[in-house]
């Protein structure tokens, strides 16, 4: 136990040393807003569950609700390419810490990937405890269901983390994961086809062998012995699976997994042409710098993961919402699906391309200050690279939509590219300043790590609505004047304003970089604590 305490103490010191003064306050503000929202949801659930009059609705909806919580806990952190806090086993493996103790800490840390669901489940339980018909077993049901989710989360994270580290199979694994993650969405969209299967999983009379139905039954005090037995059995099975996965991760050799054949390949040759293209078509030093960005970004598992997610998750999540549901044929989603998917891709890539564009450069960023090139060219090169990949992403989305024979016309295309272009300009203006002032080193080999500090996230809360406002005005103009020309007119004005803002912000970011070069390089060079977030 002393070792567990030492690890948590070291993490606390890391946190306190990393967020002195203002930073910790911002982190607290962001956390309060986000978790305050979920606390409100929990309170609402608490009220519903405490009312004996709502029992019919509770019985009907509880298994499905618990299944959704399970999906949120296990899948959403991966969808957002962030999995909460986890032990950094690479650093702790060298020390004499029993694997069982590390596993115990890791299970507890999985709470950080699903705090939202813990809050909601607490709300449900507290409400149920005030309801005379649900009070008796709800606490036990909550404890067992939370434990089950924590343990499953460890196993899934470890399994996926290892598979994504393997050089040749990680992309394939990723696509399988995308398909699995999008399954509920597809089922919802084609629910007519899957009604019997869905009923079997989540309806009030659903199969009693699933953990969510068992937890639901236990909360309601139905089939108590069977429900406890089912929940315990699932938790034990999940524990065995996760401990096995954790032990394998502990022994996992990252370098061996990442090693491949040293021989060249046709693809390698083609990629070399692709890498060299910017130097051929663009003047020095911008071409050379973009070539370097292409090489570094495309070799980074984290960038590749986010890029793939942009068009795979984007399409699988948003297209069923746009076209899968019965009902009115003209909805906002199906009229603007290309813009919506493109915006989703843009937001996913923003962490790497906008907000922390020096994150992968780490200590090598000092080269930019030593090389005989203006720093503004460095920023412009990074921005052009970001724009290139964002446009490539939208083009892939468009290509897939064309292959799926979805409605594509000049209006949809120009709207998607125009909206993304304008918002990119605005985000780049803010991103250059943040990348310089709030630089933070990111391990490019880590597929999951997000790297954004609390106060940066707080700033993003303010920046996103401001950046989206000009585009919202364009849509408003189209609505008010009922004319597409009004939309394009406002969007064109937005683009001009965006260019002016970009120019001003670029100069300001360059001045800041020259003034703050020392803390910037130090921040990029720094590593982590024993627990990565």
């Amino acid at each position, binding site marked *: 136990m002393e070792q567990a*305490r030492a690890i948590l103490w070291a993490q606390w010191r890391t946190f306190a040393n*990393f967020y002195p003064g203002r930073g910790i306050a911002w982190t607290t503000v962001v956390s309060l807003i986000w978790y305050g929202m979920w606390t409100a949801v929990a309170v609402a659930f608490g009220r519903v569950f405490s009312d004996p009059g709502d029992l019919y609705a509770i019985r009907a909806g509880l298994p499905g609700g618990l299944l959704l919580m399970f999906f949120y806990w296990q899948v959403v952190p991966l969808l957002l390419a962030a999995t909460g806090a986890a032990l950094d086993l690479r650093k702790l493996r060298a020390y004499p810490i029993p694997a069982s103790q590390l596993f115990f800490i890791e299970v507890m840390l999985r709470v950080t990937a699903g705090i939202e669901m813990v809050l909601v489940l607490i709300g449900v339980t507290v409400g149920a405890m005030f309801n005379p018909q649900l009070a008796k077993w709800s606490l036990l049901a909550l404890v067992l269901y939370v434990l089950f989710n924590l343990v499953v989360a460890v196993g899934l994270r470890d399994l996926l983390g290892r598979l994504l580290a393997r050089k040749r199979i990680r992309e394939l694994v990723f696509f399988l994961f995308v398909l699995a993650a999008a399954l509920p969405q597809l089922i919802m969209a084609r629910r007519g086809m899957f009604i019997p299967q869905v009923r079997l999983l989540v309806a009030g009379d659903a199969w009693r062998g699933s953990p969510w139905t068992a937890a639901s039954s236990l909360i309601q005090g139905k089939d108590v012995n069977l429900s406890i037995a089912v929940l315990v059995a699932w938790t034990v099975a999940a524990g065995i699976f996760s401990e096995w996965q954790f032990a394998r991760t502990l022994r996992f050799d990252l370098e061996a997994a990442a090693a491949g054949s040293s021989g060249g390949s046709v693809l390698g040759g083609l990629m070399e042409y692709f890498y060299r293209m910017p130097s051929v078509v663009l003047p020095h030093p911008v071409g050379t710098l973009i070539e370097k960005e292409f090489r570094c970004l495309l070799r980074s598992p984290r960038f590749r993961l986010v890029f793939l997610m942009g068009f795979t998750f984007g399409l699988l999540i948003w297209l069923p919402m746009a076209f899968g549901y019965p009902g009115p044929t003209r909805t906002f989603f199906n009229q603007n699906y290309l813009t919506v998917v493109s915006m989703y891709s843009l937001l996913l890539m923003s962490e790497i391309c906008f907000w922390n564009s020096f994150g992968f450069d780490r200590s090598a960023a000092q080269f930019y200050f030593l090389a005989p090139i203006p720093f503004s060219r460095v920023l412009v090169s990074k921005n052009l690279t970001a724009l290139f990949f964002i446009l490539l992403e939208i083009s892939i989305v468009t290509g897939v939509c064309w292959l799926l024979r979805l409605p594509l016309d000049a209006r949809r295309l120009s709207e998607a590219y125009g909206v993304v272009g304008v918002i990119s300009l605005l985000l780049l203006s803010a991103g250059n300043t943040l990348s310089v002032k709030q630089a933070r080193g990111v391990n490019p080999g880590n597929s999951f790590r997000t790297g954004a500090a609390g106060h940066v996230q707080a700033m993003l809360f303010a920046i996103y609505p401001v950046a989206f406002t000009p585009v919202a005005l364009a849509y408003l103009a189209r609505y008010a004047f009922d004319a597409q020309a009004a939309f394009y007119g406002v969007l064109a004005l937005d683009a001009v304003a965006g260019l002016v803002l970009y120019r001003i912000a670029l100069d300001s970011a360059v001045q800041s970089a020259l003034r703050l070069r020392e803390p910037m390089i130090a921040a990029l060079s720094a*590593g982590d604590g024993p627990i990565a977030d």
Partner: protein
Amino acid sequence: MTDAPAAIEIRDLRKIYGDKAAVDGLTLSVPQGCFYGFLGPNGAGKTTTIKMLMGLAPATSGSIELLGLPMPESALEIKRQIGLVPDESLLFDHLTGGEFIEFVGRIYGLDRMTATARAVELLELFELGEAPRKLIAEYSKGMRKRVAMAAALIHRPRLFLMDEPFEGVDAVGARLMKEILLEQVRHGATIFLTSHVLEVVERLCDRVGIIHEGKLVAEGTMQSLRGSAATLEEAFVRAVGIDRAAETLDWL
């Protein structure tokens, strides 16, 4: 000294990455109480070997015994008895030097008070006590090596595994570290270190092994290894078979 039971016993050790053998059939024995230098050119397999000894990378085949215990079967028991100066990426950058040493002490099972007291003493000994609030992220390379070595000493291990402990350390710091290490050997500890600094190895080590392209190409006492060569550098160059004269380029 060579009659003492082995602190490190490696037999036919292999480590394959992809289609390349980083370590290829390494067999080596390090007696207890020995100061052993493990040398080799860049990419020869030194760091991979020491990672396998530390339990950070599994061997593809072969066996390792440390202090008479098999690795990885008895990894936990072995790790309790060894002190590590690993690659500096294993340091926690957002801890101060004192906090890191205390953390390592507690991980090795010392109670908090003992770990804190020893951390303060070690910081003084390694001349790191002047800036107690300074984060490891702000340390120079030499300071990082010193704090790693201080942390390795906190639980008084019997065997030290050190990866390039003198890299980036200034002359004064290096001298201090050498004295501390020699003192440990005098008290019966075994030290296994990798280094590029041949002068340091020549001055400190009783035995030396030279690895090249994953294979042990020379091994023995300092005297036997040098043979007819005037310096260790000469013996080293001869052993790895790279006696390349300085070349020039037309444009240089």
